[in-house]
């Protein structure tokens, strides 16, 4: 009986960490929806602040929110309401973090990370590709272009991840890249990335992953498995030809 009670507590607090946490509107932090203002600093401030306050949802309502890489924090949910678009800035160095090029949303060593809502994250992949090509030509980036390509969501060594509902578009790199995470739920995700090289989902060394009710339309591979992934379930998820993904 006691064990069941413990399990209940773990399940409740473990899997629904942010359900009762506070909501913070983007405008509180001066985040602008005009598609022109670069909001990286303000979104980062918001994520840091919400995490320091014990967690909650950062709410984006209808509008276009231009940003470079935002470093996610534990217990913070990025919530994109229908019509809200997180737009990746087409400047490659805005994704340069600790010597590497990373995705728009990037998290490392976190717990309880969520991206939810029916909004969009779009990567401006073609413009980014042009920017990278130019920088490689100028000699300022020595790496191969493909290893520089930022994606949309990238998580590493995180526990308890929820990606739900969002639409992911025009990613130059893999739309979602997951390395060594534990306990990942992806449901109702739409990836529309035709015409760009980026794969839909790259999985490397994760355990306990469920992808459900999702749709992948990509020119690259829908799902790339790299390294050992344990306990992966892909359910009711199709590509644009109607093929069930595995």
């Amino acid at each position, binding site marked *: 009986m006691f064990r069941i009670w413990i399990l209940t507590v773990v399940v409740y607090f473990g899997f629904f960490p942010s359900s009762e946490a506070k909501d913070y509107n983007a405008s*509180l*932090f*001066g985040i602008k929806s005009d598609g*022109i203002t*670069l909001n*990286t*600093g*303000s979104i*980062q*401030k918001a994520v840091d*602040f919400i995490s320091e306050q014990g967690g909650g949802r950062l709410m984006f309502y209808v509008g276009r929110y231009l940003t*470079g890489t935002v470093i996610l924090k534990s217990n913070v949910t990025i919530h994109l309401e229908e019509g809200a678009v997180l737009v990746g800035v087409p*400047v*490659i*160095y*805005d*994704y*340069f973090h600790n010597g590497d090029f990373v995705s728009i949303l990037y998290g490392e060593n976190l717990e309880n990370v969520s991206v939810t809502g029916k909004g969009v994250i779009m990567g401006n992949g073609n413009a980014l590709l042009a*920017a990278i090509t*130019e*920088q490689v030509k*100028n000699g*300022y980036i020595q790496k191969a272009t493909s290893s520089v390509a930022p994606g949309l969501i990238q998580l590493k060594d995180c526990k308890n991840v929820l990606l739900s509902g969002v639409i992911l578009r025009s990613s130059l790199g893999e739309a979602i890249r997951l390395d060594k995470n534990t306990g990942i739920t992806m449901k109702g995700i739409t990836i529309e990335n035709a015409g760009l090289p980026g794969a839909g989902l790259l999985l490397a060394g994760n355990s306990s992953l469920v992808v459900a009710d999702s749709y992948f339309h990509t020119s690259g591979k829908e799902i790339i498995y790299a390294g050992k992934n344990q306990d992966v379930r892909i359910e009711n998820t199709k590509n644009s030809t109607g093929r069930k993904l595995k």
Partner: protein
Amino acid sequence: MRKIQWIITGLLVCLSTGFALAKDYDAHTFGVRGDGITVNTASIQYAIDYISGHGGGRLVFTVGTYRTGSIYLKSDVTLHIEPGATLMSTTNPFDFVKDKDVNWMAMIFAKHQTNVGITGKGVIDGRGFETANNMTNYIQRGVFADSLLWDRAREPNRPQNIYFRECKNVTIKDITLKDPAGWNQTYDQCVNILVDGIKVDAKSYWNNDGIDIVDCDSVVIRNSYFDAADDVICFKSHDATKICQNILVENCVGRSSANGLKFGTVSRGGFKNVVARNLTFFDTYRSAITFAAADGGTVENIVVDGVRAVNTGNAIYLRIADRWSKGKQPVMKDIIIKNVYVEIPAGKPDAGYPYEGPVEDLPRNISPSGIVGLPGHPIENVTLENIELVYPGGGDPFYAKVGLTPEELDGIPEMPQSYPEFSQFKELPAWGFYIRHADGIKFKNVILRAEKKDYRAAIVLDDVKNASFSEMKIEEPGKEKDDLKDKIFPYKSENISIK
């Protein structure tokens, strides 16, 4: 004095040989855009890191407006801002880093770097009024933690234009620095600094200083123009174990709603070996020349030669105080001030200025210059030579009065823990000079002129030892006796010679 001249010559040689020719990189080639909209922080940073890692050079900004948040300058990199180019703040406080080591926000940081510079006839624009007000807004919303001193964000939470810490061989040349949100440019514990031909236009928000040099060694500031809301050329000593030393300031012009040439207020370590020459100040609210040993520091071996200040609230204020000394003994000695002309107005010198200096310490008639130590800590060995100070006079005893009786003179407070400011004692019994707790004061060819009759003495000495006044001229209309000895009033003083 020859020692100082020698040091300065050495300094100039060091500074002029510090830079080798290096490669130029057009900022555009890194994808940096001068469209006034693109926030270039990340690209500029990448460019600086790249250039520093590839043998050094100049990152060149051609005509355009380049928006940015905080960037860190690295060794062997010069930001070169061409005429017509502006490096401009985004006005978003969250685009700025509050650096963990220096605990301050800035647009251009450099820490522990060698051979760094900012050059070119372009502009660095902090858009400080907007940035500061945006910050206040976030503080009021509870998004940014700050206790809002005097209803403004505390100084470290308002971005400066430039903050260099522990750098070697710093060149700041030709640029215009505009409107920071707080202090303007700080060089803290740096060695070998050349500031040459810059323009400062900084009147956007409180604490907009012209330039702040903190605990630096080997500094040349010259050929520059400053128009600043707060102190113009300001030296500070934040660290009791450090000192600001080997300094040359020359050929500068300044306007300020605070002080012209200021050493202090924070003065924990002190200031040593300073030559300041050929300086002009105008429309300046507080003192043209002021030195403070307020926090246990030592001020010594100072030469100020050639200052012209018009429409300036006070000429000279030397002060020992005891605010944050923590047992350290403050010292101020061996100061020569010569070839100085100052006109002090009856009205407010900075009237109409954005961020006007606050009218303080009323009621008082126009304050005299001051040399004011503390009991047991006299200001020692000060020479004033070829000085002409023009005062409005007209001190009105019905408005404020401190006379020459022992009760009145002893009633002037010592105020050791107060902020040292020429007006701090409110009314004083002199219109020209008030000198207290000093030893070894030499006035030679000093002209004090009051334009109207004043109820006060020209000079009051209190607890002064070994003072000589020679070739003096004190002019004041309407005095019955025209005797110098009647105009200089010694009290509790010894060995005073008036010739």
